[in-house]
């Protein structure tokens, strides 16, 4: 009975402060969860980059629309490829004129001088130089293909930038995690300090010294688990809502289908225990810090 009442001692003694702290923790969990999910879905900057930097297989002028579609299907079947779309010569010309309006006059000199092409989007998780070369190796020998455009010399620089950006993102996320942990720790320390008189009273009346911090840590871990679960739920809801409304969100973060796919549910499942451990750890550390403080 003593043990169970000890778990809820903070709630009994400082209900208002605990509610405020829980709200802060929820938002922190929400932030951490959202970033974690976004990072997992997008692969850092990879999804954005794979959307902007695609492989273009420029087809020959003699290639028909049917052949172009066939080419696109063939390319889409490659494991490195997220999607592949055939663009007709007319579309090529339209895009070209949009890019260089002054060249519209050229059409008057004859027919459409541009061929069609197949635009290949790499998977965010396969956005590497090796994967690019692999796709090129498959497409280049095809007789319908005139030229493969994959960034050329710029590609390796882009990939380097992408790698560094990802490292920075993850580093930033780690810092955010550390900051959150610090916040939790400070909250725990402050509460433990405030409740130190109560804990002293209990110890004087025979409550084991180790039972109090463990009970409190268990309570904090449980609350943290619940909060992170709620935060993750909110994150998923927000993501689903945004991916349906903002196309840019899908391009940068991911689509609705991907959010709920199995590969991305596992990290989610890991995030909740991690949050639980983090909360419990913060409670223990906060207790210890409060105890070692000179009276």
């Amino acid at each position, binding site marked *: 009975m003593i043990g169970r009442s000890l778990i809820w001692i903070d709630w009994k003694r400082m209900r208002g402060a605990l509610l405020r702290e829980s709200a802060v923790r929820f938002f922190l969990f929400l932030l951490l969860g959202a970033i974690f999910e976004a990072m997992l879905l997008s692969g850092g900057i990879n999804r954005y980059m794979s959307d902007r930097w695609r492989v273009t297989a*420029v087809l020959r002028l003699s290639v028909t629309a049917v052949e172009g579609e066939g080419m696109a299907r063939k390319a889409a079947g490659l494991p490195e490829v997220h999607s592949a779309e055939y663009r007709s010569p007319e579309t090529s010309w339209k895009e070209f004129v949009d*890019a260089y309006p002054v060249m519209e006059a050229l059409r008057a000199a004859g027919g459409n001088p541009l061929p069609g092409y197949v635009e290949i989007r790499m998977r965010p998780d396969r956005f590497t130089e090796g994967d690019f070369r692999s796709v090129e190796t498959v497409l280049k020998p095809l007789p319908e293909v005139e030229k493969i455009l994959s960034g050329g010399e710029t590609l390796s620089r882009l990939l380097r930038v992408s790698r560094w950006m990802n490292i920075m993102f993850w580093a930033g996320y780690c810092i955010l995690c550390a900051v959150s942990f610090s916040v939790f720790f400070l909250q725990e320390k402050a509460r433990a300090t405030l409740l130190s008189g109560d804990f002293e009273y209990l110890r004087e009346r025979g409550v084991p010294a180790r039972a109090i911090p463990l009970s409190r840590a268990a309570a904090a871990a449980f609350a943290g688990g619940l909060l992170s679960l709620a935060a993750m739920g909110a994150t998923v809801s927000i993501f689903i809502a945004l991916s349906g409304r903002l196309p840019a969100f899908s391009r940068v973060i991911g689509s609705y289908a991907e959010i709920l796919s199995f590969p991305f549910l596992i990290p989610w499942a890991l995030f909740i225990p991690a949050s639980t451990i983090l909360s419990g750890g913060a409670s223990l550390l906060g207790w210890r810090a409060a105890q070692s403080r000179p009276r």
Partner: protein
Amino acid sequence: MTVSRHLAVIASCLAACLLFLAPAHAADQSEKLRKEKARLVEMKEKAEKTAAELAETLRREKMSRSRMNDFEARLAKQRRLIAGIDRRLSILGGQMERTERAVRALDEERGRVQGTLNSESREVFAGDRMWIGVRAEDSSGERSRYFARRVLSEEMSRYGRLTADREEKERVLSGIERRIVDSERRMAAQVKVGDKLATQQGEEKKRLAEIEAKKKKKAAELRALRSRIARMEALVSRIERQAGKKERGGKEVRKGGPARFTGVPGGLVRPLEGKVIGRFGKQRDPVFDVDVENRGVEIEAPSGAVIHAVGKGEVVFVGGVSGFGRVLIVQHGSGLFSVYGKAGGFSVKQGQAVAAGEAVGQLPASPDGKSVLYLELRAAGTAIDPTVVLPLSR
């Protein structure tokens, strides 16, 4: 026919007059007739001269006409040539116009392409100059730049083709210009030749008109001459009749002589050895291009050949007759006469009797060594073909 009838009427009148006139007046009348005959001979000579002049005029007319035809043919050829050159010039002009248009179009196209190339190159390669390291463009930018480069390279090659085309067209144009200049020069030369021909033709036309006028004048003179000859012929006939009358009046030996040449005593001989070149009867005159009635034949023989009497008879006339030169008339019987004309001279006198084959004269000298004897045989006032009664070679 009308002339013959008139001649018959005149002859009848003359015969009637002679019948009424006394034989005592015969000698005077004969003298008058001789004078008249001499006058007529003179007239005939004049007429012959006129005929010769007319022949010359006709020859010149023929020449002039042939020259005119030649001029016309040359002028027609000239006109065809000029028309051909003109056609060629117009074709060349059309070609030149087309080529100039093509050159202008090529120039415009070339200028447009060059302008587009410049502006496009600036735009396409602007990204290259703006960024160092990572380019701020995505894959669509890369694609657009690839397409732009591709289009620009095509445009560059088109520009090169246009330049080559333009140079080719200019070369063609300069060739056409050269050909036009050449054609114009040739045309000017041909026009000059044509003008000259036209001038010559005009002159020839004028000359022809003059010849025509002269010809008309000469034809009128010829008509007059013919009428005079006819009159002369009538007078000769009259002489014949007069001679016949004289015979009858004088009761000479020839009364009751042969009435046909086949009956001439001693037979008939050839007047000389030669070839008949002028036949008896109606013939086409090659000089005047008219039908001429020949009353005798012309025998060609060496100059100076001796003329023999064709039969026994009496010389009734020796003298000159217009158109026949020296003439000898021999009477062989009742109404039978042989006439020898165009002779150089005669060795017999009027009233002298001649035997068949007796030398009576000789042919005149001629530069080409050949002369012609005119032989006419008359029976009962009518000329007969000598080749029928004489063995003349044709």
